[in-house]
């Protein structure tokens, strides 16, 4: 039984089946990208063991749409809804099985010989590539550092995640004490407490995506203010449907209630649209903010100058360039660096890429702004190694084939010289 299972696991039949399913998976994932958005597609097709029926349905609908068969796309909320039934193998399952298949084949029947050295190298390279990508999925982190000319940053901000930050100045220094809670903890009814905080916050309302905007004088007279304290009375909350589009972000919001020993001290509304707001009572001296999750680094970058060139007479960008000053008090490094397209800065286990660029529009000669993509990926080198291995392996293997083939032809050439033209009677 075990023997039979090992036989199946190491068979070329399984390889072909897995490759075929892989092709289908990639194809379906490509189709689903427009309706579901890249992030969800990665989660539900490629970074999962199974594809569920909702994701598959999104792909099929898009395919039908391309063929001019009208099927309405699902509403964005439907993608998040349950229950999800596994209906197709996902990326992790197929990738895992391919690695297992490869290892089993090499253990069971692969005898190393020079004639097969190329295949061996290729397969080692492929395993490295797949494992490297698995590590990347697990370990890598993408964030963004955006600043204006003259600003200094020692942190980057997450694209997706938010945190509820409680901030207090540390007396006698220019530092702040920050206690941050992941945005996922903001569930209605949850209590936000921490040993460093002399108070407790209760979550009253929570929104996955909402506009928090100023109360308009005539229009919003019937609307409840967002909260009682801080910016709350001047704002209202407009819940928005979840967005899955690549270039849009969900902006969460929440209403939290501050309670002290004598009961409620009022509510505050928090949202990335609002700046830090002062708390009161036992929380006096503390500020609250819901902001993109920050990752602090032991060094800082200062944006000195932005350069944005278009091709003459067009709006086609020719160059984005940020000149930054790197300052690391620990290692006493202080130097200026240019970051531009295809020329990132690699420092401290992070890589900084030129991402977006703009200019403050408010006044004449406004300051330039720049956004850097900040990536931490400990396994970024694996594709480089695996490419060399696979390329070398395939070259070796095909050259061995070619030499053998030409040799055979050479031996036959004498006979073929006269009757070589096929079809000539």
């Amino acid at each position, binding site marked *: 039984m075990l023997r039979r299972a090992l036989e199946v696991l190491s068979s070329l039949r399984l390889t072909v089946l897995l490759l*075929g399913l892989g092709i289908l998976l990639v194809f379906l*994932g490509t189709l689903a*990208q427009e309706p579901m958005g890249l992030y969800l597609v990665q989660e539900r097709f490629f970074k999962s063991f199974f594809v569920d029926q909702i994701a598959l349905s999104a792909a099929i609908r898009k395919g039908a749409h*391309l063929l001019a068969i009208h099927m309405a796309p699902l509403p964005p909320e439907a993608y998040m809804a349950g229950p999800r039934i596994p209906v197709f193998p996902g990326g992790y399952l197929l990738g895992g099985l391919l690695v297992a298949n490869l290892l089993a084949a090499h253990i069971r029947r692969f005898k190393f010989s020079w004639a097969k050295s190329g295949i061996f190298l290729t397969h080692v390279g492929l395993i490295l590539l797949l494992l490297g990508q698995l590590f990347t999925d697990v370990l890598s982190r993408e964030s963004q550092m955006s600043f204006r000319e003259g600003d200094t940053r020692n942190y980057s901000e997450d694209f997706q995640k938010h945190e509820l930050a409680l901030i207090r100045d540390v007396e006698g220094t220019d530092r702040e004490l920050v206690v941050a809670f992941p945005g996922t903890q903001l569930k209605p009814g949850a209590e936000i407490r921490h040993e460093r905080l002399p108070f407790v916050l209760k979550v009253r309302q929570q929104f996955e995506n909402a506009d928090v905007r100023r109360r308009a004088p005539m229009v919003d007279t019937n609307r409840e203010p967002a909260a009682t304290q801080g910016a709350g009375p001047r704002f209202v909350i407009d819940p928005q449907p979840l967005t899955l589009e690549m270039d849009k972000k969900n902006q969460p919001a929440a209403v939290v209630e501050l309670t002290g020993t004598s009961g409620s001290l009022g509510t505050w509304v928090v949202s990335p649209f609002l700046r830090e707001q002062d708390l009161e009572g036992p929380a006096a001296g503390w500020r609250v903010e819901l902001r993109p999750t920050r990752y602090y680094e032991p060094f800082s970058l200062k944006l000195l100058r932005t350069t944005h060139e278009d091709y003459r007479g067009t709006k086609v960008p020719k160059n984005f360039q940020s000149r930054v000053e790197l300052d690391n008090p620990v290692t006493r490094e202080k130097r200026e660096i240019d970051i531009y397209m295809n020329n990132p800065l690699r420092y401290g286990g992070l890589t900084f890429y030129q991402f977006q660029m703009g200019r403050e529009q408010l006044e004449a*000669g406004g300051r330039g702004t720049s956004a850097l993509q900040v990536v931490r990926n400990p396994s970024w080198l694996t594709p*480089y190694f695996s490419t060399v291995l696979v390329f070398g392996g395939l070259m070796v293997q095909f050259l061995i084939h070619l030499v053998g083939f030409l040799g055979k032809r050479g031996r036959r050439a004498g006979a073929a010289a006269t009757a070589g033209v096929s079809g000539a009677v």
Partner: protein
Amino acid sequence: MKRWLPWVVAVVAIGWSLSHLRPARDTGIAVSEFGRLPVVFNGRLQPFDSVARNSLLQIRGKQTLREEGKPGTTTAMEWLLELMATPEKANARKVFRIDHPDLKALFGLPLEANEAAGDDGKHYSLDQLSLKFEGLREQSSVARSKEAVLRTPFEQAVLKLGDAVTLYLRLQNTLKPVNSQDFEADLVRYREVIPAGTEAFRERMAGRPFDTNALTGALNFAQQYLAMHGMEPPLVVSPHHPERERDNWMRTGEALLESSFPVALLRHLINEERIAEDEVDRLVEQAGTVPLHPSLPLFGKLTTAYAKGDVATFNSTLTAYRGTLTGAYDRELSKASQEQVFNRAQPFYTAMVLYIAAFLLACGFWFASSEPLRRTAWWLVMTAFVVHTAGLIARMWLEGRPPVTNLYSSAVFIGWGAVGLGLILERIWRNAIGLAVAGILSFASLIVAHHLAQSGDTMEMMRAVLDTNFWLATHVVIVTLGYAATYVAGFLSILYVLVGFSRRTMTPEFGRSLTRAVYGIICFATLFSFTGTVLGGIWADQSWGRFWGWDPKENGALIIVLWNALILHARWGGLVKERGIHLLSIAGNIVTSWSWFGTNMLGVGLHAYGFMDAAFKALMAFVVFNLVVIGLGYLPRPGRTNLAPAR
């Protein structure tokens, strides 16, 4: 057939290809001499000839102009020169191609051809359209507000026409303001009013009494020139200081305004663009002190001479203008001239004709079994290949780029790679198979390229993120060669199925050799598509820190790699034999086309080029064709080695 046939045909083909390099001779107005002049458009320096050809392609779908009821053909350059110098005449020419019946109805255009009125029911003049511009603008804004994928064919036609009209209006303002009848005389008056006008302006800015008439007189010109500049026509006026600002070519409008009220100052005053106050003071102080750029009076002379039909003055002024650029701008002059020669030579068109001829001869060879036919086809493909290669090298030289920079050049390059492989196969087998595949595949890919060129300038500038010759030369070239190899294998397999119906031609030996070829090429394709795809990932890692982002184009490339790997493993595992390999390899055509084109039609992803309706239909037709051939491959037939014992 005689032994001399190949040589005669080869000599004719070579002579025909070279004949395109013959310089054009001007009689009358020196149009092609004008076409050699440099101009900056779409962000790159090019000859007027390229602006003319690419614009007419976008507006009319052709590089020449032939009108119903009028004799002869107008070249693109003749048309553009007329448009720039005497727009009122050009506006009567029927250059706008409109196909959608609802769009014709919107403008109340004649649907039927009418020779007397010069109507052909497809092409219309600006005069015919200009009464309904408001309607076009309304429809355009409706269409523009929708996502590209959701637009109806009518809305797409509206936007296309809107773009064509915009381009046309931009070009009209290149050399002179569109409504200046005698630009030469206008310039004389402009120079006269500048001193008093700018003086009055300074007085007014300082809050002192000023000469209203003098100011109004100068501002009337300024207004006209600002509007002209605002149309964003090509940049024709050379920079003042070639040694330090070589790329700073100017539009005629802004060059004209330098001498009175600079563009930045005017825009500041009408609140369009803010500049700092001290900069305003400086510009006010400077107004009227900069002498008129030497090119401008020459433009005046050229356009006025053209309008009057004064050939001698036009041609001598043209020589004089060229003289002002000589020395300081030799590099630009020679680049523009080279590109004009390249445009006229049309190497890819020449190659396309030779390839299809070679393909027909190769097919003829299988029926007539005549070796001279095969040799003729060989020499035709060789000639075409040389022309094709020369064209690629010329493009690389002109652009300063590796061969593949956009979808258009990828089509040209796929054809080139396919011929290279086909020629190698032919050297080995000498049975016209390699020639037939090279011929038909290159012909098809050059047809695709020809259609892609309709969207405008094929040497467009590269966006910042793509602006790296190293990765364009490695990742893009290798991936494209992988596409080419997969197509060659696919087409060989199509031949295997189709030729297989002829028992006489498809001997078991022939079948086996085809299978070996397909197998070898799929190995080659696997190597190239894998390496190219991973290099693309490494480029992405270098550019934005993501080796693999599941972008549709990346996914497409991955599918090709997986498909080729599947074929190889299926063969090694004995799951498919001769016929199976061929049918899988034909499906490779579908997989490759999906990656090359289909992924651009999804409307998402970093590599997307926009939705292409007609191209999608063509893609579907190609998919169906391949499926039909796969179906045919399943038909049993006598004499097939792997179905029934021979005889």
